[in-house]
Structure formats: C-alpha cells, structure tokens
C-alpha cells in the first residue's frame, strides 16, 4: 500500500535580513493511514517547520526550497493558495500547542467548529452546528450542546484543547498534525488528551504526525519515531526499537539527560555540552559532532548519511553499541 503521506528530501528555508536559516534540511519521511509517527527533538530542530511545510503555514520569509510532499497521489509542493485552502482542514488538520492563542477569543466555540464544516462541506448553518455538537461529544466534552455557546475564555486549558481537536476532526481529515498537543497542559489532563487522541486515531483510522520534545509522550503513543537534530533526521526506528537499541549518540544523550522517577536521585545527570547550532550557519558535516562525545576526525570531514536496515536508520559513523544497559551507565 502506498503511504498516505510521503515527504522526500524536503528543504524549508527561512530568509532573514542577512542570512538564511536552513530550518529543515533534507528530511524524508512517510506515514501510512492509521499510523502515528512521532517527530522528536529540541526547540529549533525543525520539527515544527516540517509539520508546517505540509500545511504551507510558514512564517514570513519561509519557503520550501526543494523536495516533495505527496499526500495520497497529490503533490503539495507548488500548490497554489486556493488549492491549499481545500487541503487544510479537509485532508490535513493541525492541533497547536497553545489552545488559548489558537482559538478565536471573540467567537463562540460552536461557531468556530461549524465554520470549517460550512466552508469545506458546504453545509447549512444548522447542519454545521449539529456536526459541531457531534464532534464535541466525540472528543469527550461534557454537555456538548450547552458548550457550543461558550467562548474560549470560559473553558479550562484541557477543554480548550478538546475544542481544538474537535475542530480538527470536524471534516474527518486523513492526516492529523499534532504539534506539542499537551505541552501547555497539566500531567493529569495531558494523559486524558493523549488517550483521547489515541482512541480517535483508532476509531477514525487517521494518520497522526505527533510533534513533541517529550520522549515520554513519544514512548507511549507513537508507532515509529524520528529524532531530529538541527534540521536533519538523525535516527528513525520503531518506538520500542528506538528506546531499546538506540544507535545515534544524540538519541542516547537526550534520554540520559532526563531525570527518571525510578532513578536514584544522587546520580549526576548526563548533560550534553554546548548548545544546539545556529541554523543559519550550521556546522559542516555531522551537525552533532561539536557536542558529541564519540566524535572522530571523520565526523568533520564527511557527512554521515542515514544507514542501517530499512526499519532502523541512523546517521552516524560511530553509532552507539547495541545494548540497553548503556543508557544507565552514561556519565
């Protein structure tokens, strides 16, 4: 079966006054229907830009420099604004991190959800509101009918995020991009929202691109994971395989630097020296090499490409040995 979404060698750059930021620099990925792909990395690694490139929602100066994004049998790169408007909300929907700033504070939530149904499905106002009530019920909003007339400020963070999800699902998209969907929420609410997303994905057979910085969120919810660093994919594997047999030093360092509940608290945490690189002047060759403790001369003479088997790829000349116990022993 052909994948639902296939991105090939995507390059998204952002023009600035004096330089050009290579936010996404040659990313390839694919997602099948009903699959959750986790995209994990630190801020500024290009994970959000990858998601926003699919939607053509780039910041000022941002443009897709090269590559292709295929949704089903349709090429999205080069598509005009008018056609993109049909794709957005209809085929692909997005949930943002902060539900307060991404909802319109002057509109009742029912009208906001109904809006996209009216535009994409050409439904009457009454039918659209009917649909809004239906999806609010679907996302577990208590008393959906009464909530239709609420304004966003009357809802808590968790309920607002449910409204965002309802809005995203109102036109039954094939692909849902969830960009840090739970980062602004409390842990108990985070768990509820993540469970809801998982359940809806199963029920509606949607593909989900889950973008997050939180390895814990990825661990529970994604089928496959891609780790991004400085605009490039550095490792890609099934979730269990990634956590048990990580090969890229960045993945290993990232996991070792998280304080864990089952860890003794007198242990010193591993910390990655230095800072992520400036993407307008990324380091030549391996981009993690200045912060990597396994770096050799080859790492700044040649660029490591993704290698390994088709289900577990990594871009490193000195991959971490295949063993689980290493994580704990990193110092």
């Amino acid at each position, binding site marked *: 079966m052909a994948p639902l979404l296939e991105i090939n060698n995507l390059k998204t750059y952002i023009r600035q006054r004096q330089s050009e930021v290579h936010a996404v620099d040659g990313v390839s990925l694919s997602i099948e229907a009903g699959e959750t792909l986790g995209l994990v990395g630190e801020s500024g690694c290009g994970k959000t830009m990858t998601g926003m490139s699919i939607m053509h929602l780039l910041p000022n100066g941002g443009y897709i420099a090269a590559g292709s994004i295929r949704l089903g049998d349709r090429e999205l790169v080069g598509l005009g604004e008018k056609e993109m408007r049909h794709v957005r909300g209809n085929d692909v929907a997005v949930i943002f991190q902060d539900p307060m700033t991404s909802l319109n504070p002057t509109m009742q939530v029912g009208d906001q959800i109904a809006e996209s149904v009216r535009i994409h499905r050409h439904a009457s106002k009454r039918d659209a509101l009917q649909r809004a009530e239906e999806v609010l019920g679907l996302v577990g909003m208590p008393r959906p009918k009464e909530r239709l007339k609420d304004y966003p400020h009357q809802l808590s963070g968790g309920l607002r995020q449910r409204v965002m999800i309802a809005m995203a699902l109102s036109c039954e998209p094939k692909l849902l991009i969830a960009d840090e969907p739970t980062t602004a929420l409390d842990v*108990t609410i985070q768990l509820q929202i993540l469970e809801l997303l998982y359940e809806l994905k199963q029920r509606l057979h949607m593909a989900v691109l889950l973008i997050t910085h939180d390895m814990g969120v990825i661990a529970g919810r994604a089928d496959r994971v891609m780790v991004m660093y400085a605009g490039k994919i550095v490792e890609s594997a099934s979730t269990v395989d990634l956590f048990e047999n990580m090969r890229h030093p960045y993945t290993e360092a990232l996991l070792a630097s998280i304080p864990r509940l089952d860890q003794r608290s007198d242990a010193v945490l591993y910390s990655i020296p230095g800072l992520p690189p400036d993407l307008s002047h990324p380091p030549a060759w391996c981009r993690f090499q200045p912060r990597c403790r396994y770096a050799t001369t080859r790492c700044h003479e040649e660029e490591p490409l993704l290698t390994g088997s088709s289900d577990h790829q990594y871009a490193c000349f000195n991959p971490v040995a295949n063993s689980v116990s290493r994580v704990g022993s990193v110092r």
Partner: protein
Amino acid sequence: MVKEFTVTAGAVLPHKIGSIKAVSDVSFSVGQGETFGLVGESGCGKTTIGRLIVGLEKTTSGEIEFDGTDISKLRGAQLRRRRRDLQLMFQDPYASLNPRMRVGSIIREPLLVQKIGSKAEQQARVQQLLQEVGLSPKSTDLYPHEFSGGQRQRIGLARALALNPKLIVADEPVSALDVSIRSQILNLMNSLQERHGLTYLVISHDLSVVKYLSDRIGVMYLGKLVEFAPSSVLYERPAHPYTQGLIDAIPEPNPTRERSKTADPIRGELPSALHPPSGCRFRTRCPRAQEICAAVEPPLVSFGPRHLAACHFPLQTPEPAAAATA
C-alpha cells in the same frame, strides 16, 4: 536540625466575587541544607507558597518562621535585611531579566540595593559569581537577549546567589528549558548546594524534576498539602490516591512500561478554587471516594517516619499512632 521554617498560612487573595484560598492551612518545615520539593498541578497554590516565603505576598494568617524569627510580620528595614537570606529563582528566564540592563548590572543590583561593598568589590563579586555558574567573565557587558535560555537561567542563579542567601526558592527552575539544557542546570543547582550549604525550596509541576532535586517532597492539591514524604518513599509507596495518579500520569521514556500501564487515570478537571469541594478536595476526581469524603475533611495521618498523608481511604496502612505533625 539547626534551623527550621514553619509555614502556617491561610492566604486569602481578595477577589471581586468572593475569595480564593490559594493556600489553606499548610504547614511544613525545611531543615538547613535540605531540599524540599513542592509538587502539584497549576492552580494548586505552590507558587503562592514560594512568594509568601520570600515576602512577595503577605499571609492572611499564620506564620513563616525563618532562623527563629517570624518573617511574615517583618516590615520595612527589617524585612529588607531579611531578604538577603531569601532569594527567588524564576521560571521564565526571558521575563525575569531586564532586557535593557547589561548582565553585569543585573547581577550587581542586589549588592547595590543592599549597599554591600565598594564598587570594585562588587565588580569582583560579579566576576566570581559568573565563574561559579559557568559563564564567561566577558558576559558582564552583554545584554540578556544575547544569551540562550539555559545561559539566562544561569544569570538568574548568579543574581540569586549574589547576597549569599541561606534559602533559594526555585519556582519551576527548568520548565522553560530544553531537555539537553535542563540537566546542565539541575546538575549546577546540585553542585552549588553542596558548595554553599544552600537550602532549596523547589517548586514544580514535574514530579521527576522535583524527585531528582529533593530530599523530601510535599504534594499539593487545591491549596492543601495532601501528602508529604521523603522523595524515594513518595515514589515507591505513595499513600494518597492523588499522588499515585500523578505518578501514573507522567509519561515515562520507556515504551514497554508506558504501554502496560493499567492504573485508573485521574478523571475530570481541577474544580474551581473559588468553591472547593466539601470535605476532601480531591474527592470529585478520586477513584476511591465514598460518602464520608464529602462530609469530613481527612486529617494528615502518619504512614511511617516523616511520611504524612490526608486521605480516608489511603493506599497504604497508616501507623497506629493517629494524627501527627511534620
């Protein structure tokens, strides 16, 4: 213990349509050189406690004893002198540094306010502080925007250390930072504590961060302390259903364990602090709640050495000796 801080506060923040008890009858003590962690969801009152301790808010009733004196009653010059010992480390390294001041002046400001040392001495102290937190001595002439989030948090820490405080209240010290930077700051906080014998009050919503830093942890829910215990005990044998729910809700970077979790998650949302539920405040979301929970507020009961929890149907068996104080 040489020093003890006792907080008994009932802070009523004035509000147009009523009053919110942000912190309601909370008592705990922190020993010198110890790290006490306060954990809870947003709106549970943990930040208010931090602000009460450093004197940014006034208590409605109750006292905060620091080093033998009740600091909640101090005013004017006495309060200003006391503030040398109590410093705050803020969550947001972007909002807590004045963007128009050079880093040197930011770190020097507490020394100026407290009129400590000559200009040369103050400048030497700034250099020494920069070195301690791992920043280059040249940083003094730069502005905050020239630094990354992690470096700014180091500047904040240097400013907090300038007056040689005894207690640092760290309110969400790493929440705004990236994972790879977080561990640098956590390790720095630990090493500074060892070097200077600092006492920390760490406030965070992130139980794994609090557990990593703290010796003892207090769990708050809607203005009440519902459980406190030494940090390993809290994680291994939590007595309060809320603590258990909080532990279960934390996504662990371990797919096998994450997927085998079967525990009943906490349902629903945090009730309004304006009208907290009667009896036990957690009962509306508690899987174990029964009739008595709505009628009677559970007292703090001992579950072992320095382990207290307030629940009618706890997950552990309480010690026979009934209600105790920490």
